[in-house]
């Protein structure tokens, strides 16, 4: 914990320095504190969109494609996508994923997926700062209409949905031209609070 704080502090100092001197310390997926220089961040994000970054092979990508959201995630955005891993989908009750992939469940699938998309570009550091400012619990609105609660545990960010399911951010700040993707380890459900 202390080590984390120290490294975060160092990284923050570095970022601050780079901001002053125009160095290129920031960008490229590090979780350092401090606002990223827009130029460097854009470079780090490159020309790849979130859709091409997500690829075709994961269950999340397949679900997004079924709901027509792959076009969305190739558009201008920007969006912040919380992408559950295949292991996260495996945790769902048996058959849930297959049910969602059926055409009749299109609306439900869209609802679940848009619950994993936040407006704008929210980096892990931004969530962290929001948690601090909110004294431990920050609220994040999703495109689906519901909200998520973000808290910090150690040096990890934990997102809680309306039903109380918790997802930990396992890999953050995968930057793309139209936003950012954070990998999470559970599927969030738009549910009663």
């Amino acid at each position, binding site marked *: 914990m202390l080590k984390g704080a120290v490294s975060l502090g160092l990284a923050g100092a570095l970022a601050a320095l780079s901001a002053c001197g125009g160095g290129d310390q920031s960008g490229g997926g590090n979780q350092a504190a401090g*606002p*990223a*220089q*827009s*130029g460097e*961040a*854009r470079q780090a*994000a490159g020309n790849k969109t979130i859709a091409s970054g997500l690829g075709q092979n994961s269950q999340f990508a397949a679900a997004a494609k*079924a*709901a*027509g*959201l792959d*076009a*969305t995630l190739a*558009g*201008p*955005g*920007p*969006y*912040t996508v919380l992408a559950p891993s295949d292991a996260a989908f495996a945790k769902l*009750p048996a058959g849930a994923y297959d049910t969602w992939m059926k055409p*009749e*469940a*299109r*609306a*439900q*699938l*869209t*609802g679940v997926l*848009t619950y994993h*998309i*936040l*407006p*704008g*570009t*929210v980096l892990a550091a*931004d969530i962290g*700062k*929001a948690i601090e*400012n*909110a004294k431990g619990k*920050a*609220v*994040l*609105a*999703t*495109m*689906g*209409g*519901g*909200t998520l609660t*973000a808290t910090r545990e150690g040096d990890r960010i934990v997102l809680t949905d*309306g*039903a109380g399911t918790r997802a930990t951010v396992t890999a953050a700040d995968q*930057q793309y031209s139209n*936003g950012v993707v954070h990998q999470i380890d559970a599927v969030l459900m*738009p*549910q*009663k*609070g």
Partner: protein
Amino acid sequence: MSKFFLAASVAALAIAVPASAKPDKGGGQGGGGKPAKFEGGGGSGKPAKVERGGGGGQMKAQKAAAKRFQQPMKQERQVLKQRDKDFRQAAKAEQKFQKQAVKSEQKFAKQQDKLARQEFKQREKLFKEQDKRDDRFAEQRRFDNFDRDRFESRFGALGFNGCPPGLVSINGGCMPPGQFRKMMIGQMLPAQYSNSLLPLELRDLYRDSDDYYYRYGDGYAYRVDRRTNLVQALLPLLGGGYSVGQVFPTSYMNSYVPDYYRPFYQDTRDDYYRYANGYIYQVDPRSGMIQNIIPAYSNGYGVGDMLPASYSYYNVPSQYRSFYPETADYSYRYGPGAIYQVDRQTSLITAIASLLSPGLAVGQQLPMGYDAYNVPYQYRSQYYDTPTSMYRYSNGSIYQVDPTTRLITAVIDALI
């Protein structure tokens, strides 16, 4: 323990034996055993030669006697020695035996221990397995309950017509729109809709004709054949058929927002929130006008659904028009929560071109959920949070927010 005593007794004997081998030291200080051969002639054991003088004779006799006395002593000593040796050997053997006994006892004990431990482990394993089975059973039940809760509460959000958002209510049941459409076409118009006219604003789009007429049924426009009164077509109405700026039907004013949305959409003096057909309507209490339509599940419709009837014209918001111009193959339509890409030939939604978050407006309080800074990369160096101002991004614009009052004070166009 016994070997100790044995050893002790052996030791005692060993000490005793030499002691007894020492007679009262009359003449022979020779101790251990060499008989003094003082005679100088004559052999041992011969009776005293008395001739050699008087005094000498007596000493000789004494010496001889001593020798004679020593003789059996020698033998005795030898016997004793042998016995001693035997004893010691016996003792050693005993010790060895004892050691072995102890060893084998220990070995046996170890084996017993091992067996006991194995048995214990087996028993523990069995218990654990039983526990696991119990746990799994309980977990399954818990999970079932949890699942049931999740899905129930999902579907417990009974809206105006008793169905979850996205599903259509018919004859007391709920079903997905596609199925419903298939079912309804060719059927009689449900009785409850026979007098339900379309919302005023849609009547120009859907004009009754000599051959058919339209009725409104919970988010759908029913086109009914005049002669047969059978349903010819079913058109899903985006936004439930209502749009921003229209008057919200009073009949829906008693339909409150489902439980799980209540915390987020609470009635205020200036905003009422009502729910119908999968949408949350933000209504101005005084004028009854719809100010905003928030899809309860993004949009209630998705890829593969028919183009919603109420938006037959290009209505994409200006900041997005350059990205979504009308083309020969596709048209774009804006609906609450999204911009849809529609195939011109089939009129089906083929993609969600862009997702839209509930809009922000200058003068409004920053709604819940904008705790985190979310400005796009290319604007971050320009617009970043300071103690005097915050910046939040929504739908193509960056909004400046006062951190203390949380009021949105300005909007900056951010061409994406």
